[in-house]
C-alpha cells in the first residue's frame, strides 16, 4: 500500500511542478525566452498573496481575483519594458536580462521581507484530507493544486487551439518575421503570453506557499523543477509538461520512500536520462521536427 500511496502523492506533487512549468514552456515556445526569473516571479506571487491575505485578513484564495490580474499586468509590463527590448539584441541578451532580474528579485525580497521562511493562510482547505481505503490519505490541498494544474493546462490548450488569439500565438511561435509580414501585431501577442506566464507562475507560487514555506531564495529551486518538467515533457507541448511534472513528482516521492536523501538526486538523474535518450523531450515527435524542416525545401 505504501507504494500506491507514494505514486498517488507523487502524481499530485507533479501537478504543482506542471503548474509552475507551463508558463516557462509557453514563454520559451512563443518568444524563445528562457526566463530564469520564472521561479522568482512565482515566489513574488506568494509574497503578494501574503501581503494581500494578511492585509485583508482572509485566506489567500480570496485574494486570487486581485492577485492574478496584478500578476498578468506585471507580466505584460515586464515583456514590454524589459524582455521585448532584450530580444532585439540576440538570443543571449534575454538570458542575461532574466538572470539579472532573478538576482534583483531575490535581493529586493530579502531587504523587504527578511530571509525568514513564511507560509500562506490557506484556510480550512489547507488542513483537510480524506482517506482512500486504509493507509492512503489525500490532502485536499494537494488534490486542488493538481486539479488546478489540469484546469489551467486545459484552458491554455483550448485558448491556443480554438481562438484567433491562439492562432496568432502559434503562428508567431512558428515564424515571427512572417507573422509580422502577414499583419499579426507581434508585440501584443508577446505581451499577453508573458502576462499569462507570470499569472500562472503567481498561482503556482500561491500553492507552493500554502503547501509548504517559502523564502526570498526559494525561486531558484522552483525554477530547476519547472525547467526539468518542461524539458522532459518536450518543449512547446503543454500536456507533455504535465506528464513531465508527474514523472518528476512520482520519481521524487517513490525514491523518497526508499531513502529520502536520494529523492532529489533521482529526479535530476531522470532528467539527465531523458536528456540523453530523447533530447527533444518525450512529446516532441520526430514527425514534428520533420514537418518544421519540410517547409524549407521546395518541391
Amino acid at each position, binding site marked *: 500500500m505504501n507504494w500506491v500511496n507514494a505514486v498517488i502523492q507523487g502524481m499530485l506533487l507533479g501537478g504543482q511542478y506542471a503548474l509552475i512549468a507551463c508558463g516557462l514552456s509557453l514563454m520559451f515556445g512563443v518568444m524563445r525566452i528562457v526566463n530564469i526569473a520564472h521561479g522568482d516571479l512565482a515566489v513574488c506571487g506568494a509574497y503578494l498573496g501574503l501581503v494581500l491575505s494578511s492585509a485583508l485578513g482572509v485566506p489567500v484564495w480570496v485574494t486570487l481575483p486581485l492577485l492574478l490580474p496584478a500578476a498578468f499586468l506585471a507580466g505584460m509590463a515586464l515583456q514590454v519594458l524589459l524582455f521585448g527590448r532584450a530580444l532585439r539584441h540576440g538570443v543571449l541578451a534575454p538570458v542575461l536580462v532574466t538572470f539579472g532580474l532573478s538576482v534583483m528579485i531575490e535581493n529586493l525580497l530579502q531587504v523587504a521581507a527578511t530571509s525568514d521562511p513564511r507560509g500562506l493562510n490557506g484556510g480550512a482547505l489547507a488542513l483537510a484530507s480524506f482517506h482512500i481505503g486504509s493507509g492512503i490519505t489525500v490532502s485536499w490541498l494537494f488534490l486542488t493544486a493538481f486539479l488546478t494544474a489540469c484546469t489551467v493546462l486545459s484552458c491554455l490548450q483550448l485558448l491556443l487551439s480554438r481562438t484567433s488569439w491562439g492562432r496568432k500565438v*502559434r503562428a508567431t511561435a512558428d515564424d515571427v518575421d512572417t507573422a*509580422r509580414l502577414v499583419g499579426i501585431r507581434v508585440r501584443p501577442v508577446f505581451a499577453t503570453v508573458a502576462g499569462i506566464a507570470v499569472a500562472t507562475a503567481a498561482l503556482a507560487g500561491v500553492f507552493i506557499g500554502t503547501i509548504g514555506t517559502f523564502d526570498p531564495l526559494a525561486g531558484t529551486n522552483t525554477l530547476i523543477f519547472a525547467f526539468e518538467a518542461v524539458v522532459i515533457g518536450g518543449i512547446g507541448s503543454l500536456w507533455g509538461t504535465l506528464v513531465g511534472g508527474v514523472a518528476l513528482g512520482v520519481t521524487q516521492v517513490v525514491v523518497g520512500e526508499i531513502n529520502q536523501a536520494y529523492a532529489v538526486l533521482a529526479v535530476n538523474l531522470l532528467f539527465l536520462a531523458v536528456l540523453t535518450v530523447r533530447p527533444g523531450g518525450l512529446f516532441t515527435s520526430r514527425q514534428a521536427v520533420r514537418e518544421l524542416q519540410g517547409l524549407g525545401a521546395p518541391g
Partner: protein
Amino acid sequence: MRHPDVPLLEIADLDVFYGDFQALFGVSMSVTQGCATALVGANGAGKTTLLRTIAGAQAPVSGSVRYDGLDITAAPPHRRISRGIALVPEGRKLFPSLTVEENIQVGAAAVASDSWSLERIYGAFPMIAGRRRQRASTLSGGEQQAVAIARALAAAPSLLLLDEISLGLAPRVVEELYETLSGLRSAGATLVIVEQDLRRAMDACDNLVCLLEGRVALAAPVASVSAGEVVAAYFGEGTP
C-alpha cells in the same frame, strides 16, 4: 476618392541597406491601378528586397513609398495590410504547425473586410479546398504555394505582391496558379509579380521593370519592348 491619374503605388528614390550592404540604389517605380507589373532581374538584383520594402518588412534609409496617395514609408506591415497591400513571400513561408485553414485565417487577422471569404478562396483554389484541416507542412509544393497566395488574399488586398511563386513547381501547377492570377486581375486586383521566367512574366503582365544590381535598368510597357531589350537590361549589356 481615388484619382485616376494618381498611381496606386509610387516609389521614389529608395535606398535600402542590409547592414553595410546596399541592396537598392535610388529605385523609383509606379504601379497603376488594375495593372500587372512584372519585376524581373538576375539573382541578387534586389527584387525581393523591393517587394519586402513595399510590404514594410524592410525599412528604406531614404526615399519614399506612397500608396493610394498616402505616404506609408514608415508604416508597420499590419497598417499596410489593412490599407490593402499583401505580400506572398519568397519560399511561401507558411506556418508549419497551423492547418491550411488556420494559415488562411491568420492572413485575415489585420483586416476587417471579408470580401475574400474562406468559401471564395477555396473556390479560387480548388486544389486546397479538400485539405483545410491538414497541417500546411504536409502539403505538396504547389499546394503550399496556393495556400501562401490564399493567405495573402484573405487580407482582401487591392495590391498583391507575389515573389517567385513558380519556384520549384511543376509547369502544370505553375500554369494553374497563373490562371488563378489572371482571374484575380479580371476581378480588378493590381499585381506586382517577381518571376524568373521572362516569357511567362511578359505574357502575364502589362508593364515590366527590370532591376540590375539594385538599380532600375528598364521600365516600360511590355508591348513596347522586345525580348532582346529585356535580356540586354537583365544582363546589363549595351545599356545606352
